[in-house]
């Protein structure tokens, strides 16, 4: 540690104004605060500092995502060996394949996203903010594994520039950056983002694994199967709960998502109001759709519990809807916001034939309405109190 401190002190003068590398001051600053707690103190007034700063908050979310990440790696390997008809692959073989398949996506997402943030910080002479830490790990978990890396890179660049930097950087974005990445891919390259060949990796990862597709195998996700081929639909809620089904890497396993949710709730980082009301909305809409089930909309045949276990619903509820920046902030607003996300996710999933999954669009839609919900909640409260004041 001491050696590191001395090294940082030694190179410090180069980065100050007039130094050789003064243009890279924010890079130095970012590295220093990453390694050491800053020793500067506030100079005026009274301040209360909480050591639970943004970096720690972000890291906690990343920790909460680790179960999903590990499960994603295992499931990618599991689906791969199932697809090529290898029955006797061991746990570690599956895990290694998943690791090799997912790692490039993680690297691309972080290099592109952080690269743009670094460049932006240099241009504006601002501190580098750590907002991308969580986004960078969310992107590989929600983008189908077969998406070409350059597409992920383009989409990440688009999302960071147009959904975040333009609005003023970390904490100022209106829409969830990771979901904008996915939405960009979804609308720009639809053939790579849906269908049977998007979610199960068949070819090898760095020369490991790979093979020919076994007879009778389809890589359709359960929801895709529901939409196109309901008679053969066989996935139970239990399968979706454990998570060994095809799908976007992070979204398949309910167990991993629930562990993540527990971490977020115990540390108090995510709002339980949002999480609870998303599930309530999903179950309510699912029950409603199930009550009026008909052949035209095959997804309405699913019972509400299976409905919320399948697809990206749970992942969106736990990690996307609870984003404090893009969500509602008032307590009553959070109930409304979450409930409507749940309702819209199932509504789109069941009644829009074009989109087998609606969680992404539901969260983005409600992101746009979150400020309005907050405004109305605050205004109602103000009016109520103003009326009380007049009576006296």
């Amino acid at each position, binding site marked *: 540690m001491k050696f590191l401190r001395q090294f940082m002190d030694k190179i410090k003068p180069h980065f100050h104004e007039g130094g050789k590398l003064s243009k890279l001051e924010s890079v130095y600053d970012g590295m220093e605060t990453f390694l050491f707690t800053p020793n500067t103190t506030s100079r005026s007034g009274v301040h209360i500092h909480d050591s639970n700063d943004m970096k720690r908050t972000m890291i906690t979310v990343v920790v909460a995502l680790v179960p999903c990440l590990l499960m994603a790696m295992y499931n990618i390997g599991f689906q791969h060996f199932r697809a090529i008809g290898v029955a006797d692959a061991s746990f570690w073989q599956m895990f290694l394949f998943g690791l090799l398949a997912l790692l490039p996506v993680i690297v691309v997402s972080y290099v592109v996203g952080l690269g743009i943030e670094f460049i932006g910080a240099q241009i504006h002479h601002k501190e580098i903010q750590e907002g991308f830490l969580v986004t960078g790990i969310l992107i590989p978990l929600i983008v189908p594994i077969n998406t*070409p890396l*350059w*597409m992920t890179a383009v989409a990440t660049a688009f999302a960071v520039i*147009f959904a975040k930097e333009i609005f003023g950087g970390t904490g100022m974005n209106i829409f969830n950056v990771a979901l904008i990445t996915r939405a*960009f891919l979804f*609308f*720009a*390259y*639809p*053939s*790579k983002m849906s269908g049977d060949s998007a979610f199960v990796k068949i070819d090898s990862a760095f020369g490991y694994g790979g093979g020919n597709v076994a007879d009778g195998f389809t890589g359709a996700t359960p929801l895709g199967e529901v939409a196109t081929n309901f008679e053969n639909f066989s996935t139970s809620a239990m399968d979706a709960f454990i998570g060994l089904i095809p799908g976007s890497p992070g979204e398949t396993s309910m167990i991993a998502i629930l562990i993540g949710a527990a971490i977020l709730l115990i540390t108090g980082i995510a709002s339980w109001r949002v999480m609870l009301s998303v599930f309530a909305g999903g179950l309510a809409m699912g029950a409603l759709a199930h009550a009026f089930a008909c052949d035209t909309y095959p997804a309405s045949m699913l019972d509400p519990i299976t409905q919320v276990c399948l697809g990206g619903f749970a992942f969106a509820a736990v990690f996307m809807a609870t984003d404090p920046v893009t969500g509602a902030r008032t307590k009553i607003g959070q109930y409304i916001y979450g409930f409507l996300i749940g309702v819209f996710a199932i509504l789109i999933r069941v009644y829009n034939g074009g989109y087998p999954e609606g969680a992404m669009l539901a969260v983005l839609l409600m992101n746009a309405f979150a400020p309005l919900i907050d405004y109305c909640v605050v205004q109602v409260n103000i009016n109520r109190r103003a009326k009380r004041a007049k009576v006296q």
Partner: protein
Amino acid sequence: MLSKRNKEALFNPLSKDNPVLVQILGICSTLAVTAKLEPAIVMGISVIAVLAISNVVISLLRNTIPTSIRIIVQLVVVAALVIIVQQVLRAYAYDVSLQLSVFIGLIITNCILMGRLEAFALSNKPWPAFLDGIGNGLGYMIILVIVAFFRELLGSGTLLGFQVIPQWCYDHGYMNNGLMILPPMALITVGCIIWVHRSRNKELQEK
């Protein structure tokens, strides 16, 4: 012929006072007709023609139009010209006129037209009004062509219908960006052009 004032009327709308970038007028058609380069160029030329001629006509009539019905008179003039343009396109460029569909007719409601007629033609002589019409039409067309260039290149891999991005790229995994064809990306492209334009002309930046 080209006094300082006339030059300003002709050249200011190209950049400093661009109808799309600075006055943010005519956005609707900018988003609608720019998925391909060819319709964008035809649309630009149509707007130049209608705007220049209607500016001259209104400028000639400016002392005889009663103020209370001037909007109706302007609409009649523009509508007549738009119908002529529409018939000419149907006769000589039928395919493009199909692609442009209602948007040629909607030139009538293009804010640039009413704006220039109200703000310039009603209070200036025919020759400056003509130059103003040409200038504003060109300013509009430039933006249309830039937007359509990027949208067609990235969205379809073609320019004016000719394949530009070589097959070699597609063989190696390149794909056309479907989002570029959709209107949201046109809005973002216009936004990017405004971004570049504002950063080059600092005096135009809003506080």
